[in-house]
């Protein structure tokens, strides 16, 4: 978990200080240094346009975290709203949500996100939206479970007994108590969000070149893999390190939350 925190902090500081730390402008072309091997001047080498991959990878951290957080926020908002409504009101609403979850379980998230991003027209914003509206299933399930437990707590009964309306009970008494778990869960959802986003960008539907987004950078380097292994390898490594950081962090948090599964994974 400590290692996870360190990795995530490293990526976050790369994102924050990319402008100051990066030795080169991520968009600066250098025709004298096309596809040059990693050396002291360019630790990760340069790409087919002579851009410094190390600088681009640092700037990529911004995109990765921004995309990841945006996706998780959308997923969380949809998941919390649907999950809470289903559990709190029960009956047909709950039945409907569970059927929708069943359907979402049948359509591969990546495939649906790919199709929606395609229909919306690609690009960074549309990709985030596409992943957000397809990936909320786990959030909804989690919130539903939480609210089912909280709903029957004595303080909720008390609030209702003094005449509080449904919305007030949900907003003031139920949701704040479910919030802690939801926030921890966002850490667990980050790896998936990051991987989906990088995959869509790799497939050409997310961030477009010349954006220094890691998935798009891997895709750009694909054509030169025979001559210049470093162009694809380093951005991919950056994705892996970031996802690994969140996985370590989430794994540790999960153990703290639920000691029962601590020996599990």
């Amino acid at each position, binding site marked *: 978990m400590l290692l996870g925190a360190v990795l995530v902090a490293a990526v976050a500081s790369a994102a924050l200080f990319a402008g100051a730390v990066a030795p080169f402008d991520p968009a600066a072309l250098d025709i004298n240094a096309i596809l040059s091997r990693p050396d002291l001047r360019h630790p990760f080498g340069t790409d087919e346009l002579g851009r410094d991959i190390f600088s681009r990878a640092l700037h990529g951290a911004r995109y990765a975290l921004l995309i990841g957080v945006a996706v998780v926020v959308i997923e969380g908002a949809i998941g919390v709203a649907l999950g809470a409504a289903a559990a709190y009101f029960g009956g047909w609403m709950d039945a409907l949500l569970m*059927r*929708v979850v*069943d*359907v979402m*379980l*049948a*359509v*591969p*998230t*990546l*495939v*649906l996100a*790919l*199709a*929606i*991003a*395609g*229909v*919306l027209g690609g690009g960074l914003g549309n990709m985030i939206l596409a992943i957000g509206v397809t990936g909320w299933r786990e959030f909804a399930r989690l919130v539903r479970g939480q609210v089912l437990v909280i709903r029957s707590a004595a303080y909720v009964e008390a609030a209702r007994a003094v005449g509080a309306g449904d919305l007030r009970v949900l907003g003031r008494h139920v949701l704040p108590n479910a919030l802690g778990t939801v926030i921890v869960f966002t850490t667990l959802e980050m*790896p998936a969000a990051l*991987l989906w986003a*990088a*995959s869509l960008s*790799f*497939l*050409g*539907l997310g961030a477009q070149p010349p954006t220094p987004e890691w*998935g798009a950078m*891997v*895709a750009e380097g*694909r054509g030169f*893999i*025979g001559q210049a*292994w470093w162009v*694809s*390898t380093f951005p*991919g*490594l950056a*994705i*892996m390190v970031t*996802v*690994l950081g969140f*996985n*370590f962090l989430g*794994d540790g948090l999960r153990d703290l939350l639920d000691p029962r599964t601590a*020996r*599990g*994974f």
Partner: protein
Amino acid sequence: MTRYVAHRLLSLVPVAIGVTLVVFSLLHLTGDPIRLLFGLNVPEEIVQQRRDELGLNRPVAVQYARWLTRAVRGDLGESITTGDRVVAMIRPRLGPTLELTLLALLVTLVVSLPAGVISAVRRNTVLDSLSRLTALFWVSMPTFWLGLLFILVFGVMLGWLPISGRAEEFWSWEGVRSHILPVLTLGLPPAALFTRLTRSSMLEVIGEEYVRTAHSKGLAERTVIVKHALRNALIPILTLIGLRLPWLFGGAVITETVFAWPGMGRLLVDAVLKRDYPVVQGIVMAMALLVVASSLLIDLLYAYVDPRIRYQ
């Protein structure tokens, strides 16, 4: 058993209907399918004419009913770019995708079941904690990057294996060689996850009384582990396979793109990039139905592994 199967089949109906709703809505997401299908530069008269032809001026419910009846008959429309029937385009792609996903699943299980059992039997050794660490590494790996690394190492540097494409003849030297890298790319990362699950599932079962009974009967350790423990530990593993099925097809889309594999996934990516929406709809539908059918298969396997389900 018959009741169980019938019940399972019936529960699939709402899911299948839901899937068709999702697929149908795809085209209507932006509000104007015609503009989506034919672009923004088409004159207004032609747009109106096409709209009448395709029945888009009728209520959405009627459109859905019409689309659904045709889909049930196996008519998913025509490709905008080539004019070919969508079903005819998907059919030859089905085999390569199923081949890739099934072989990958096989690799996952062949690696993870023994590894998980060994981890459980030798729990809390260095080997065990190493496998926990490795598991997190593997699940953090982007599929497309792993594929490229494989290409780099085994294709470009060592020159051992072909870097793309699928040899027509499976039962040949070339055929086997062309399958190795894509199958490993799709099959190895989940193996780490399955190893961990097999381990915890085995640990739970090993503590049960019937395992002790088997031991005290004097059965060999091997027999106890394989026949008494593993068989019962398989149930959560089946559940995980069911949960990972959608992921398997999602991963196939990426793997097929990286290795220029002639499957449904690559057709999907091509269609999305060319904005060929009927093809996109057709593949999303086909993949969802494949997932639904395979989860039915898993449910039947449950009944096979666990007699309690059969006699309920």
